């Protein structure tokens, strides 16, 4: 009701900000960067950016799917740690097997999250908080507190090599984005995710498989986080379960929110999430490049999150 009392002009502005703000932000950042440094777009720096962006992006996409069901997954960083702990254990057999084990580990973690949320009815933030704390402990037990070097050709190819001038991991991210867009737009599952997130009671009474939907989104988030873990280990050439993926859940939530997906569920913006992750990455890169102290960068990030949440707040009203 109160939103209606605001001027309609104002509402339109907020709606525009929610829908296109992040893209405009990217354009502005790129313009500023090229103005200050004409070689910005051409520089090899862009590759470095991509390597930093992709793992966060994969995690963010999983996060967006969970958030669309009015949930949240705080355990994604711990799943990365789990992947980092599992990889060295199985690399001796075969890189493919090791990666498969990692993804299975992510799947299992997601399954446990999903069971807690969908079947036991635990609130997502609590269920995944428990998983976040416990799983990192498990990962450190598997691996020990020391980082292990990982020098496997397949993994370092995934982490560093390019095909057609574009890093392999960027191709992977592109594939995941396309798959997710397809899932949301063209499959019954995608419609179910939106319906469950928007009105769970109505979905249940319409006979939708609510539990299965919830279970599946947490599994997706878990598997994508494990994949991000594999890429991080490959890129860094070391497995460090005590530190890898720390705070990535927060970066992912930020990307999702900045990308225009409301935390209240019922909507998912896949491309927006990509843009959100890209925007935050560009922002921090720009600030670092111009030697802005980290503390100021953090304050700016916080301001951006507030603006994004403000713009997304009135999703229901016209």
């Amino acid at each position, binding site marked *: 009701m109160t939103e209606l*009392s605001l001027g309609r002009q104002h509402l339109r502005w907020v709606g525009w900000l929610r829908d296109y703000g992040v893209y405009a932000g990217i354009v502005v950042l790129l313009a500023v960067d090229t103005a200050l440094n004409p070689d910005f777009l051409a520089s090899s720096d862009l590759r470095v950016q991509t390597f930093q962006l992709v793992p966060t992006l994969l995690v963010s996409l999983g996060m967006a799917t969970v958030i669309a069901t009015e949930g949240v997954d705080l355990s994604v960083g711990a799943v990365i740690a789990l992947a980092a702990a599992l990889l060295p254990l199985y690399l001796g057999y075969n890189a493919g097997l090791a990666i498969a084990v990692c993804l299975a580990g992510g799947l299992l973690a997601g399954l446990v999250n999903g069971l807690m949320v969908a079947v036991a009815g635990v609130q997502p933030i609590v269920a995944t908080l428990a998983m976040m704390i416990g799983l990192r402990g498990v990962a450190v037990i598997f691996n020990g507190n020391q980082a292990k070097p990982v020098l496997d050709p397949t993994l370092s190819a995934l982490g560093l090599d390019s095909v057609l001038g574009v890093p392999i991991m960027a191709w992977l991210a592109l594939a995941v984005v396309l798959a997710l867009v397809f899932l949301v737009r063209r*499959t019954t599952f995608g419609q*179910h995710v939106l319906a469950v997130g928007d009105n769970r009671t109505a*979905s249940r009474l319409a006979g939708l498989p609510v539990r299965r939907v919830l279970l599946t989104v947490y599994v997706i988030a878990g598997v994508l986080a494990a994949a991000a873990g594999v890429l991080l280990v490959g890129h860094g050439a070391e497995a460090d379960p005590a530190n890898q993926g720390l705070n990535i859940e927060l970066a992912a939530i930020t990307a999702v929110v900045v990308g225009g997906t409301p935390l209240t569920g019922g909507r998912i913006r896949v491309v927006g999430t990509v843009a959100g992750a890209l925007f935050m990455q560009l922002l921090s890169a720009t600030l670092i490049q111009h030697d802005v102290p980290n503390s100021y960068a953090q304050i700016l990030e916080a301001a951006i999150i507030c603006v994004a949440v403000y713009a997304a707040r009135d999703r*229901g009203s016209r």
Partner: protein
Amino acid sequence: MSAAVLQVSDVDKRFPGVHALRGVSLTLAAGRVHALVGENGAGKSTLIKVMTGVYRPDAGTVALGGEPVFFGGPIEAQRAGISTIYQEINLVPLMSVARNLFIGREPRRFGLVDVRTMNRRAVAVLREYGLDVDTAAVARPLRALGLGAQQMVAIARAVGVEARVVVMDEPTSSLERREVVTLFEVIRRLRAKGIAVLYVSHRLDELYSICDDVTVLRDGAVVHTGALSDVDRLGLVSLMLGRDAAAVRSDGVTAFSSDHGDAVDAVDRLVLRAENIEVRHRVHGVSLAIRPGEVVGLGGLLGSGRSETAKAIAGGLRRDGGTVEVSGRRLRRDTVAAAVRAGVVLLPEDRKAEGIVPSLSVRQNIVLAALPRLSRAGLLAGRKQDEVVAYFMDRLRIKAASPDQKVAELSGGNQQKVLLARWLCLRPKVLLLDEPTRGIDVGAKAEVQRLIDELAGDGLGVLLISSELEELIEGSDRVVVLREGRAVAELAGADVTERHLMHALASEPEADGDD
């Protein structure tokens, strides 16, 4: 007529594509209850929002006590003395009754909330509204009260802010009969205090028992205004619909046809048989049987277990006992999906909370339950969906800008039709309709009633729950009456009359209680 308190003159309001109000004028007088009626889309809610500062009119003026006023928002309107009570209760369920009453203007002592004074004053205020409370009761959370009592608190709160005008938008939609009586007493008290009341309702009974004046809106314009006693019910309905009074008379008040039961005699098999349905604390051994083409009414007062019975049959509420058979085949599992697969579907009572998925489109809402059938290997079949959606939007006359419009933007009646379409595209055998016409306008109501008739004519079994006696009586072939979770009477044939039904509803519980 006494002094005009609020005067709306020649107000115009346009929205993209809609001319919502066309030169509407309305005068509310001190100490009078003014009814505002009209079909959906007639402009009632827009007019209320203009009066209460939610919208700004494109043209025309609103004057309060003779002075033109411009409200920047609802809060300004409230400060000026215009209070609004909405259908949904805007209170905080977990806070105490007293705190809800005094929210934002708590009595203070030493800078802190003076709880004792607040509770004492709350008791005094609420007693004035016919609520029998003491200081212990007002300290309990609001949700401990019944819906009706909560509504009273909302009214007491709204009126407490020095109101000169009180706008009530369907205040009785969640009230029991007894609570309506109390509400009316309150309204009379407001009237005696010289407050102008604007009363919006679809229920003719209520209008004629409480209102003094009436304004009828149709298509954004005033088609009639004057004393309510000058126009009879039929006249009022025909003004709203823009139909001839004689035609309304011959069609009856509801749109149900009078010749029920021809399909019933012919077929003697049951499409639904529910035996001894148990839901802990709610439903105790209720049995129902429905034949194809039959409309069985489920009567009872609020809290008698009607909705719970329907939900338990449809798998939406866990059964603690009892069986459900559809066309002679027993449902193995107690889930919505199992019931839907067998052809039993439920239109839930609370459209907003349990029915629509608000940010999805009309199309997505219609196909929601049918997705598995409208897809191949999990992929959506766009063409097939479009056909289904187009067919049902046309057949049920769903008014939407396009199938891609958000369902939350539709009127209540159209939302209800979307929900009906959601089930009808599954070709169900049994429709369980829980208050299918609640809170929708006269026109849509008639359409839904006619549709129920048609569907029964096509051989569906229908269970109809309604709080409106005439709807239950005219719509049903048989009526099962529940009280406190038990079936206490069954009326059939010539016994389906208002007198019998009232008698069954009102009679004292029998000593043995079990059926």
